[in-house]
């Protein structure tokens, strides 16, 4: 059963600490999206990659956030240093290179920064 896997599912950390969230896209998918979901802002696109290259990260605060794809099976989203306002659910989604297909979402990482 192919699915997008995100780890950790939950993370509680203190302000100022580094947080790394990981995403394993579905095998063969070449597009990866990172979204942040909050009550106030809804679903915000932070960054997305195609064939491991970043296409758009304009939605990401550059001073503290970074997104990478070290290889085709792993995408990471890092926050350093974390702040309470970063508390949210972070979703990863992946998409196939085939036309007329949708993006599949992971279960999300619920981040709480205290």
């Amino acid at each position, binding site marked *: 059963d192919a699915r997008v896997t995100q780890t950790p599912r939950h993370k509680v950390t203190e302000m100022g600490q580094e947080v790394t969230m990981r995403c394993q896209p579905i095998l063969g998918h070449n597009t990866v999206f990172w979204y942040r979901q909050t009550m106030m802002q809804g679903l915000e696109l932070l960054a997305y990659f195609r064939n491991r290259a970043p296409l758009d990260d304009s939605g990401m605060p550059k001073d503290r956030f970074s997104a990478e794809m070290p290889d085709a099976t792993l995408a990471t989203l890092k926050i350093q240093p974390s702040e309470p306002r970063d508390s949210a659910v972070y*979703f990863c989604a992946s*998409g196939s290179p085939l*036309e007329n297909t949708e993006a599949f979402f992971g279960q999300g990482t619920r981040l709480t920064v205290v």
Partner: protein
Amino acid sequence: AQSVSQHNHHVILSEAASLELGCNYSYGGTVNLFWYVQYPGQHLQLLLKYFSGDPLVKGIKGFEAEFIKSKFSFNLRKPSVQWSDTAEYFCAARGAGNKLTFGGGTRVLVKP
């Protein structure tokens, strides 16, 4: 810039009532359109999608959506909702460059 807007933030209705959620997009060129559903505490799941062809698209769980190009709309409908349809619904669009943009979501509460 590409954008997606959903008309209603919250909808409350009773079981067996009909549901229609509005979605408008702002894109130039070819666009793919989607509706996703997020049940409480869960991730987003695809309800239906439109790429081309018949503008009336049928999805899972009795949902359908109609693509009206002249109105830049892709409204979601269900003739008779159930309590289990309580969820948040997101319209999304994908244009050139594969960027997938979501609307603000509509929270639907179905009262038993």
